[in-house]
């Protein structure tokens, strides 16, 4: 596995979790599971802090370019998928709530910050923004806004690898929200991936709302996992506020995909714990929803569980959080000094073949 240099994977900075866990060898969880769990928890916490920073910068005004769409409450679901993936080997097409998954996949936070802060050094160089970022050549797809339309693209990358004979045990993964499942693109992509029997995991984060639109106006089946059978693929439904459940589901899905069982759907139920974007106060979410099981903060739940299991101590978590804060602050400071895009340095070429580019306006 080769990792492109700008993507050198951050190791979890939590205080030696494996040592801590040796206390409880009787655990039903394998060491491997435990390691993934703590990795995921790290990325969840990193994601949350990073997004809180982005929210604060947005509210302060003037610093963030464009909108801010956060994954608060969806970190467990996103990270559990992300930790299954190997940057440089697997294909990942994340969506707007997948900050934790992106970090778990191996994106360094400087890529996030460069994009949001509008630095020319970021992966999109000011041409496209924030949640659209990616590095497709590294298997890290860069979503367009049109929901559902990344699914077939991730499928296509896997298809090409199989054709070239380089697929090996690579898998692909992409996400969609409850709203995104209503798109024709989702359906066509899902069906095509099933026909081609591609090793693709599709995670459906049912956060009960699409912007302001509740599930009742989005679909009429009991559970979106009921769609899986209609595509002839394996489907699972989990409580997405429970990191252990998320990990179990995505580990299983990844294993089945690698075993040649074709696409895998994982539906997670949760509640979006933020507005659709930071401009939105989500006043359309009734208060009583905010006190349901689905509204639990997956990070608190996950941390508590890890401590109960003896996998990590409270002190270690506190230390980790301090390190995360420092990392974020340092990176913000660094990126803040980086240049903004300069239109005079822009070549304004939409084609890679320079010879076919026509003249532009003066």
């Amino acid at each position, binding site marked *: 596995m080769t990792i492109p240099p700008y993507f050198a994977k951050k190791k979890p900075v939590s205080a030696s979790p494996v040592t801590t866990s040796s206390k409880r060898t009787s655990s039903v969880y394998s060491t491997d599971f435990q390691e993934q769990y703590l990795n995921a928890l790290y990325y969840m916490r990193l994601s949350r802090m990073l997004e809180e920073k982005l929210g604060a910068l947005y509210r302060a005004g003037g610093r963030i*370019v*464009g*909108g801010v769409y956060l994954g608060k409450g969806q970190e467990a679901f996103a990270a559990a998928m992300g930790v299954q993936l190997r940057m440089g080997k697997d294909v990942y097409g994340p969506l707007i709530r997948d900050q934790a998954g992106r970090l778990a996949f191996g994106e360094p936070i400087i890529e996030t910050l460069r994009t949001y802060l*509008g630095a020319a050094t970021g992966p*999109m160089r*000011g*041409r*496209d*923004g*924030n949640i*659209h970022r990616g590095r497709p050549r590294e298997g890290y797809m860069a979503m*367009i*806004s*049109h*929901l559902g339309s990344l699914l077939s693209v991730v499928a296509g990358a896997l298809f090409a690898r199989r054709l070239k004979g380089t697929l090996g045990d690579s898998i692909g993964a992409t996400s969609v929200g409850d*709203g*995104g499942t*209503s*798109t*024709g*693109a989702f359906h066509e992509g899902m069906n095509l991936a099933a026909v081609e029997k591609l090793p693709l995991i599709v995670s459906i984060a049912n956060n009960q709302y*699409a*912007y*302001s*639109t509740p599930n009742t*106006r*989005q*679909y009429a089946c009991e559970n979106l996992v009921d769609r899986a059978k209609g595509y002839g693929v394996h489907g699972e439904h989990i409580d997405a506020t429970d990191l252990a459940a998320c990990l179990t589901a995505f580990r299983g899905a990844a294993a089945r995909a690698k075993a040649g069982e074709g696409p895998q759907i994982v539906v997670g139920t949760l509640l979006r714990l933020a507005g659709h974007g930071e401009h939105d106060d989500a006043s*359309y979410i009734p208060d009583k929803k905010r006190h349901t099981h689905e509204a639990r903060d997956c990070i608190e739940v996950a941390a508590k569980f890890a401590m109960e299991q003896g996998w990590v101590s409270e002190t270690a978590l506190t230390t980790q959080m301090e390190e995360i804060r420092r990392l974020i602050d340092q990176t913000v400071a660094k990126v803040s000094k980086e240049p*903004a*895009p*300069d*239109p*005079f340095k*822009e070549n*304004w*070429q*939409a084609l890679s073949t320079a010879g076919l*580019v*026509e003249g*532009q*306006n*003066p």
Partner: protein
Amino acid sequence: MSGSITYLEAIREAQYDALRNDPAVFLYGQDIDTFGGAFKATKNLGKEFPGRVFDSPISEDAMVGLAIGAAIEGARPIVEMQFADFSSIGFNQIINQAATLYWRTETPCPLTIRLPSGGTAGSGPFHSQSMEAIYAHYPGLVILTPATVEDAYWMLLDSVELNDPVIFCEHKFLYYHLKAESIGERSLPIGKARIARPGRHATVVTYSAMVHDAIRAAEELQLDGYQIEVVDLRSVKPMDTDTILGSVARTGRLLAVGEAFPWGGVTAEVISRVASEGFHLLDAPPMRLNAKDTPIPYHPNLWKAHRPTVASIAGALRNLLRY
């Protein structure tokens, strides 16, 4: 500009009045009921007209299809696309189903599709597009591009009354930035262009938000003694060739300005019509000014350089006048 009603409020008012005037009118779109729409163009309408404003699933193809079926039955749906850019998903239903219905079957299709269009800083390639040319190329559609508060209101009301499918391109930048004292009286029918500013040295033909940039450029050139006429197309299809030719007959010089992509589109259509039908009116080669031929950039630094601006319009006019 100051005043008491915005372009956005005019659009909301028009929908309010359409719903009030005619029980056949209903609204269909994402997040338009309780939430009032991503831009609040339907704020409170769900409450004021219960059972006539519907949140739709994220299914632009089916949203348009549903509206076509309803229009066939004599309803007068207004479909809101959350952004014009997402109408690409409803493209097939629009150009092949709605646009051909009357011609194929003599069944009218009174359908209005609202497209929040055009660029605003930081919105990027998929929340900034101007798709009027795409729809205007296909027969069977009326494509409107209001530039004023008055037109936003009256043309939307007119659209709903029309027995043909209308693509109503509202400019998002004007939503909050354009204000008027009041809506004003209906002045022109659909299909007629408007002289937004009289002049005699050159004509700028443009539409939507660019009308205001063109006027500002004209004001800049006035300082140099030039009187620039600005024609606001209002409707890009049908296009009011007579008014355009009338203006060019007065000025002898033509600059067509649009914020859409440069290949084809409204400005090419304008230039072609004038070159073909008003060749001898021209004292200088007609000019076009459009956005650059790349996707619309996200970062404001790039975005400003991508599209025509008051400065680039003024620059183009200077070149045109120098000729």
